[in-house]
């Protein structure tokens, strides 16, 4: 579980100290830190060396996921030699990671989030998260308002988390 706050650093990868507002720091700190860690995880071949490892990214929202996938795929094209450990394009591995929704983006048109999730084939990997009781928690009702199909809503609110944590539908741990 890669949690954004545990990877935030005031200088790397983003010069957070130049912001005078928490608005600026909080926008850039969480997302850019998690992206830097994820880039390193991919470029050092973690998902190739440990194919059974389940990786989840939390507390960063989800809108950065398609950006990073596409950016990495583009760079990979020219620089495969630097990361010959990869057997597929970076997005192939990123699509297998799990993404927690909080702090879920709140576009004017909530349908945009459905489109966004489709960009990273996220219906089987996106998990509702609340971050309760932090100041920027999400109430389940907000994610519930996203116009998912019932099937996808069921996955986001439960089935995907069961897969991540290896728990069956009766609540039994499968990895003990």
């Amino acid at each position: 579980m890669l949690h954004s706050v545990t990877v935030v650093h005031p200088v790397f990868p983003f010069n957070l100290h130049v912001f005078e507002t928490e608005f600026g720091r909080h926008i850039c700190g969480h997302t850019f830190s998690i992206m830097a860690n994820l880039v390193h995880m991919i470029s050092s071949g973690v998902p190739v060396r440990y194919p059974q490892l389940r990786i989840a990214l939390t507390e960063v929202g989800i809108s950065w996921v398609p950006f990073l996938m596409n950016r990495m795929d583009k760079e990979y094209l020219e620089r495969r030699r630097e990361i010959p450990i990869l057997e597929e394009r970076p997005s192939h591995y990123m699509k297998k990671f799990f993404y927690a929704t909080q702090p879920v983006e709140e576009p004017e048109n909530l349908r945009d989030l459905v489109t966004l999730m489709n960009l990273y084939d996220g219906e089987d990997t996106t998990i509702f998260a609340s971050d309760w009781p932090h100041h920027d928690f999400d109430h389940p009702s907000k994610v519930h308002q996203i116009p998912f199909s019932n099937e996808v809503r069921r996955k986001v609110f439960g089935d995907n988390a069961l897969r991540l944590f290896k728990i069956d539908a009766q609540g039994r741990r499968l990895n003990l």
Partner: protein
Amino acid sequence: MTQRKEHVVGDLSEFPENSHKVVKVGRREIGIFNIGGEFYGLPNICPHQTGPLCEGKTTTGTLVARKVNDWRFEWDYEGEIVACPWHGLEYHVPTGRCLAFSNIELRTYEVVVEDGKVKVRV
């Protein structure tokens, strides 16, 4: 299936060992590679952004990392890799396989040497 036609593209002396060059056959541009005495042909067009992929100056090897060697970097495919001069996408000449994207495989042309002539079958 239509019979492939043989086209003479030059004398053997024009294709020294471990060199390659682009020839024109009708409207096609084909890269003819002589790798250690074995001949291969690839289309001179990169499926990525239509770059002249066989116009890279030299063929090289490339870096790979495999589980059997504990994921250490190794130099492999010496002389068998051509990189498109536009964006550097690498291809394995004997098979046409793109190293970065396993779903991309170039067509390969059969190249034969007969009576001191190099011929490509199209």
